[in-house]
């Protein structure tokens, strides 16, 4: 399995700790299994401002972007599954 494209990895560096942790967990558990469509959706998600990104992942806001909507439960599952330092 290939490591996530490093550029995507750097774009997961965010302005809020919550997003840093959610996205980092997903890079470790889940991102590799995505097909191209899923990766494109992830790139779109990374384009969102931090507040909106967090709201979407925490389900406080919904998106009409079906690709991103499919990612949300995967990201949450990754965050809950990650073993932390």
């Amino acid at each position, binding site marked *: 399995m290939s490591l996530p494209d*490093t*550029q995507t990895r*750097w774009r997961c560096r965010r*302005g809020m700790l919550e997003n840093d942790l959610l996205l980092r967990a997903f890079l470790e558990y889940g991102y590799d299994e995505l097909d191209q469509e899923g990766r494109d959706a992830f790139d779109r998600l990374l384009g969102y401002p931090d507040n909106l990104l967090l709201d979407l992942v925490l389900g406080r806001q919904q998106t009409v972007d079906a690709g991103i909507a499919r990612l949300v439960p995967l990201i949450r599952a990754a965050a*809950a*599954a990650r073993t932390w330092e």
Partner: protein
Amino acid sequence: MTLTTRKFDALIVGAGGAGLRAALQLSNAEARVAVVSKVFPTRSHTVAAQGGVNAALANVLPDSWHWHMFDTVKGSDYLGDQDAIEYMCRAAPKVVYELEHFGVPFSRLEEGNIYQRAFGGQSQHFGKEQAARTCAAADRTGHAILHSLYQQNLRAQTHFFDEYFAIDLIKDETGHVLGVVAFDILSGEPIVIEAKTTLIATGGAGQIFRTNTNALSNTGDGMAMALRAGVPLEDMEFVQFHPTGIAGRGMLITEGARGEGGFLINDQGERFMERYAPNAKDLASRDVVSRAIAIEVREGRGCGRNKDHTLLDLRHLGADTIMKKLPGIREVSMTFLGVDPIEAPIPVFPTCHYSMGGIPTNRDGQVVVPVKDTPEDPVPGLYAAGEAACVSVHGANRLGGNSLLDILVFGRAAANHILDFLKDNRQHRPLHQESVDQALARLARWDRKGEGEAVEPLRRELRKVMEDHCGVFRTAEVMQEGVTRLHELRERIDNAVIRDHSRTFNTARVEAMELENLMDCAMATIVSALGREESRGAHSRMDFTDRDDERWLRHSLYSLQDDAMDYKPVRTQPVTVESFPPKERVY
């Protein structure tokens, strides 16, 4: 290899609120300005600020800048510089109205004025009734400020080097700062950015502690750059902690949870706050609760596999109350721990929130260092603002809402001084190749191959050492052991290697250089904390429990060379009003 070189009038390292506010002032005055940021500007940490920004607008309750000044001096436990505090509190209304003009959508009162919230530590009439001083754009003030300033900068044609990592300052033999050496994270190519003036606005260093509320990017890069350029760091021992962060993750569980009746327990299930604060119990002040948690863990009554946290129990409140009154807390706990507080208690530990210390500056944002008899001599061409700087308006403790104010007021003030400097200094000084080579060598050092420890475990160890030895439980013995361990770590970091030597988007190299910066900031923090033999504001020592104005009403200065400590007086004289003399701090 030819090295790319670019020249600007003013260079700003950091695109958070401080950097962008300064850049805008400069671009609007038609200076040639460049901003370097390791993350895309709108992903700077300022985006996380929710609470708001303080200014005595008197829109909701009577207020005055002078009362705001009193609260800030008192909040600082009298360690804040009163000239800078006066300047900041007077400038606050203007800075907030400017933001409004830049497009920040502040929440409003019915009649249209900016709405203001009441926060802790705000008073009318010098310590009497509660004041309401915090202006907010709903719960996303930082986001609104950052995005508005970024848009304004694009319009003003500020040049951005997005996703460039600044390595070190360039300094010539006469001590003038000439810009920075950076590298493009995308291509891996180094670049020399020459500038007549350089402003460091790289934010805080919260990542030196295992449990903290800061974004991962808060690694104190600018502070470490200053240290390596021979500038000492001021008051680094003052670090604000919040008692209940999610253990191992860092984000806050607000006081609301305990306000609703939640309580802390140890591994025996004991409500231990009853022992530490028989009356206030779980609602005792932040430092008391923080210390109690740390003591429980130190004495072996911590919970979990590593016995490294305590638990916050909400279960007895019942599902209804939790879902109605604490939905945000439940959500965070479920997302980051997979723990539903209706069914199980939440693991918590004190979390580092804000660095009061930083690069010493005067109220014009000039970086100042002790030279012979003067404690504050400007370093020509070098400025600092924001959480990276120590101007010092927060002294030993920052008030909520004063940090966004600090970054805006002093970002702007630094820019104004830079404009004056540029009038008198029209030419670039000759580049100092030796200094450039030194920075390039620091970059090339990570190309080394062969055996060596990896970066991530070292980072983890560093943060754990800081949490255990320089967190909320501080004694000479505990910290001395921490210093010894950091010295060992410093050597191991010198010998560390990274496996990925590719040029493009090599984030391993960025993380390695951040680790070096964390190391320098951590050492500055613990050595300063060991030096200060008193308790003041956020620095509380178990072996020196009282504030000691006679010996310690002074600022600490830590230098990288020999890890040496020096001290300088507090500026107790404001600009136009009378000084507030130290008093016992009671709220």
